[in-house]
């Protein structure tokens, strides 16, 4: 597979784009690479009226990994700031967890090598 790290960068871009979209003013990103894969955690605050977007995020990130979709469309991830490609993030990751409270949302993503 080509562009292993660039693809991870695209995933981070896409989630960062989403956090901007829901009104995050403070974002933290944690990234770790080990022998098995990539662990990515993003956290940000959000505007309360955007809570529905978080419900959608949970739905989109629940999609199974699909390598044939990733292989063709991965360049679209994180590119466009007026819309999101969250389903693509779901298809590019092996595991995803979303936690949220009244103020902030935390997204854990795992992508195996």
């Amino acid at each position, binding site marked *: 597979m080509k562009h292993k790290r660039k693809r991870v960068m695209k995933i981070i871009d896409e989630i960062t784009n989403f956090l901007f979209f829901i009104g995050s003013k403070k974002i933290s990103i944690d990234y770790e690479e080990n022998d098995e894969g990539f662990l990515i955690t993003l956290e940000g605050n959000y505007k309360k009226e955007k809570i529905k977007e978080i419900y959608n995020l949970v739905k989109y990130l629940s999609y*199974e990994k699909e390598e044939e979709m990733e*292989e*063709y469309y991965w*360049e*679209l991830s994180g590119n466009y700031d007026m*819309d999101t490609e969250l*389903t693509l993030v779901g298809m590019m990751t092996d595991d995803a967890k979303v936690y949220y409270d009244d103020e902030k949302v935390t997204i854990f993503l795992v992508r195996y090598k």
Partner: protein
Amino acid sequence: MERKKKPFKLNMTYYVLIAFSLIQIIFGLTQDTPKEIILGLQSILSNPDTLVSDYIGVGGIGASFVNSGLLTLMFLFMLYKMKHRAHGVTIAGILTISGFALFGKNLLNVWFVVFGVYLYSRYQKDNFSKYLVVALFGTALAPVATEIIFSSLLPYHLSIPLGILSGILMGFILPALATSMLNFHQGFNLYNIGFTSGLVGTVYVSILRSYGFVPEPRFIWTTGNNFKFSIFLTILFLGLIVFGVYTRDRKLSEFKNIFKYSGRLITDYVKLEGLPFTLINMGLAGLLSLAYILIIGGDLNGPTIGGIYTIVGFAAFGKTPKTILPIFLGVSIGALTKTWGINEPAIQLAALFGTALAPIAGEFGSIYGILAAFVHSSVVLNVGFLHGGMNLYNNGFAAGIVAGFLLPIFEAFRKDED
């Protein structure tokens, strides 16, 4: 959410597509005698396939629909063997093949490109299944092989290996290019492989022309079958709607959810809203497209039915009646003010395949969709020469140029949220 991969099995999407293929074959068998169909298939397989080659004119209605149904079944079998999980993109890819198998893709010419994609996957030491989506859409370049194989300029001992090698080469370079080209139009051209194939075809034909090889222009376009095809297509699309309504597991009022998406790549309605609502959307999009062709006094034949099938396929992957209508309007308004008639063959195709730009209407609004289509109908008439008709998705090529050109302008004038 812990995601565990479910075991592979044939899902309902596969069954719908298999049924669609069988309907194509059965319809074909009712139109001509077996002998006529075999002779027709022979004629389809032994002629060049550059734009515009209406197979109904080349081999007859029976052979065209049998070719379409059989080719679709073959690709479904390949997907099944590769354990591909069928969803919206599968429907789009498969119906694009079904549609173009009425005017350019046949049981022979598609496999060279597919084999080229396979070789690319081996070169990358990857599983071929990762490149299936590119292989499905990449058959746009199928005529590259047959244009050379059946060229009158070369003897067969040269034209056959050269044609085969050219087809394989196209498939080999397509995956890397197709992904990269998405950046140009940001997913607002649903026929990205068309845009990519247009560029590949342009470079390829430029090289051929510099050696004195000029692709021979073709224009085979049948007329006079509107009544027969209207009945067939209306039943087919109503069938999709009825099946969708019957198998749905949610209230019909929730169907309107499908209109809230822009349709930009990747918008997979099967994943987002489920197969039943997707089938209803496909049926409605098909009926609208059919109505458009009939209202403007167009012709139902291989190319236009191919265009309608492609719309129906992409109604599982980015198009809705709401976003394709502005495209029809834009091309129609263009025809009223420009130097051509609304029902000229190229303009009929510009309207049908111009719906590649439907996400512009979905994202920015109908007026922008109309404007994009207005521009598209002019651009598409000027780019076919570049690739000599070897890229079957000529409108996809033009739509890529139009989307990449208009997108920054539309964004510049859009009001930001903050």
